[in-house]
């Protein structure tokens, strides 16, 4: 089931990476990730295809992460999250093209 997670955090060293690693350690693909400042804090939005059990595990992992202070999720209808991605979301840096090549291809 696809879920959209919204995680509020203080943007201290490594906190965003710890948030993402909760997904990567479970082998979950991350088709969409966005991180941005929101008020005095930051918010990461992750779209993940997860089971109910994984939702609970992720919640607990994130709540146990220092500098994460709020976690919310909603089950995302496909057209809904597509719309949210199109709504002005910046492209990930890895897709930036340099001389017609993606950076990741040049690595």
């Amino acid at each position, binding site marked *: 089931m696809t879920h959209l997670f919204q995680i509020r955090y203080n943007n201290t*060293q*490594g906190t965003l990476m710890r948030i993402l*690693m909760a997904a990567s350690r479970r082998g979950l693909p991350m088709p969409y990730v966005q991180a941005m400042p929101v008020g005095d804090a930051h918010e990461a939005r992750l779209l993940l295809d997860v089971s109910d059990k994984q939702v609970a595990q992720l919640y*607990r992992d994130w709540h146990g992460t220092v500098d994460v202070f709020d976690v919310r999720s909603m089950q995302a209808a496909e057209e809904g999250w597509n719309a949210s991605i199109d709504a002005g979301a910046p492209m990930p840096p890895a897709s930036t093209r340099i001389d017609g090549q993606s950076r990741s291809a040049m690595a």
Partner: protein
Amino acid sequence: MLRGADIVLRCLRAEGVDMVFGYPGGAIMPLYDALDGSGIRHILSRHEQGAVFAAEGYARSTGKTGVAIATSGPGATNLVTGIADAKMDSVPLVCITGQVRSILIGTDAFQETDVFGLTLPLTKWSRLATSIEEIPDIIAQGFYWAQAGRPGPVLLDFPVDLLKAKMEFKGPSTFSLPSASNGHAKPDFWPKLQTLLQGAKKPFVLVGAGAKLSGACDPLTELLDTLQIPACATVHGLGAIPSDKTYYTGMVGMHGTKASNMALHETDLLLVFGARLDDRVTGEPSRFAPDAKIVHFEIDPAQLDRVRPCQLPVVGNLNQTVPQFHNEVRNVKLPDWSEWRAVACGPERAEVDSRGLSQPATRFLDALFEQLPDNSFVITDVGQHQMWAAQRYRKNSPRGFITSGGLGAMGFGLPAAIGVQLANPEACVVCISGDGGFQMNLQELATVHRLKLPVKMVIIDNKYLGMVRQWQQLFYERNYAETDMSDNPDFVAISKAYGIHAALLGVEAVAGLVAPPSTAKSLFRFLQSPEPELLVFECPKEANVYPMVPAGAALSEMVFEEE
């Protein structure tokens, strides 16, 4: 003006650090240069993994934060196993690493490793210092997070140029969260718990490391004395409940007692105190305590519902929530559970199957543990000897049994014992290792010798990687692939080469069911020696640890011999 290195050491002193474990190298040299006169004793290991395990031993035996120091690159990567071990077993640990000069970070400089990135999933908190001004605050926060809530490891990475730079030092920082919980659970847990208790016919208690970490062993024992509910302990919970309590059923889990595993399978109300219920405790998770409602007392909400949902989570520090529970329950008439207690703790289940106990290694350990003085610590490595020792350990000392239980890191035993001995110089410290694990960090014999630490080292030598071989025997049709160690070195000669007295004990020393007086006498001498000593016990090659819950089986499906 003080150098960054001096500031680091002053901040460590302010955190109460008087001993650190480490190994020098290029990027951490300024810190070593500043050590003399800092008031901090440095213990030189012979490998960074030895340093971090020793720091863990120091922390596990005292509850204080252990500190390990290493240089950048390989020094830092050699800490990683210890950091993972501390994460799994909730050990307060601060690792300090040198890093290449700030300007070189990200250039693949000599001995550069992204240790900050490497350890992100293993640490509770970490920082790569970017300015000398940050150092006091980073250290204060690091020590706070190492101990806060569920303790764990912290990594602080200092580029060498910051350690050499100078600034006016205004004093150490302090850090604490203003909103930190006082450890009390929400008061509404009692009515729900009371209802569950009143409806329970077969209640059972499982005690984990949290009881020790929170200093709640005494209040928990008092609570259990009131409840008179059968109770077991995880391997990390050993010693939390006095083993002579009539309601105590022993260790639970893959190599737990029949009494504990059967009671856990049959219970209809499971009270968990400070345990995360990992797979070595639960057996097949889907068949764990199948009829039980679970009440989980836990400081870390992230540990709740990992295996299956609990009906009542009680989040808070056990040294607060257990007395809360006791205050409520002492005024209540509880159901009569004597019939269930007679079954769960009765003679039919009171001892594990004799076939599992009549083999020489357990008889040897019985004879050894019989002689242990009260002020003693048993540290194990990882493998069969670890489980034999856990099965036979009977001391009522909350921090007295120390083992790498979560990560299961071979090589843990000897360096951890060094840390325990240094933290507890008057104690009798006994390290039980296997022949495989001992060879993973035997270079630390040099540390033992240099410091003249009276650590008592035991190698249970079966010339195999015994636990893997046991699984190969039972589940891989005796295909003993790469577990043979019949060409082990002469451990006695190696020990003597390091200047440590060593002796060999053959299996005949425990030929009878009770060790002969001569064996008891030699074990007494071994333990009472003021010097370090190594004793190699030659164990039959194919001895197994029983009872055993095979992988994928329920706890009730223990095996007691090869089928």
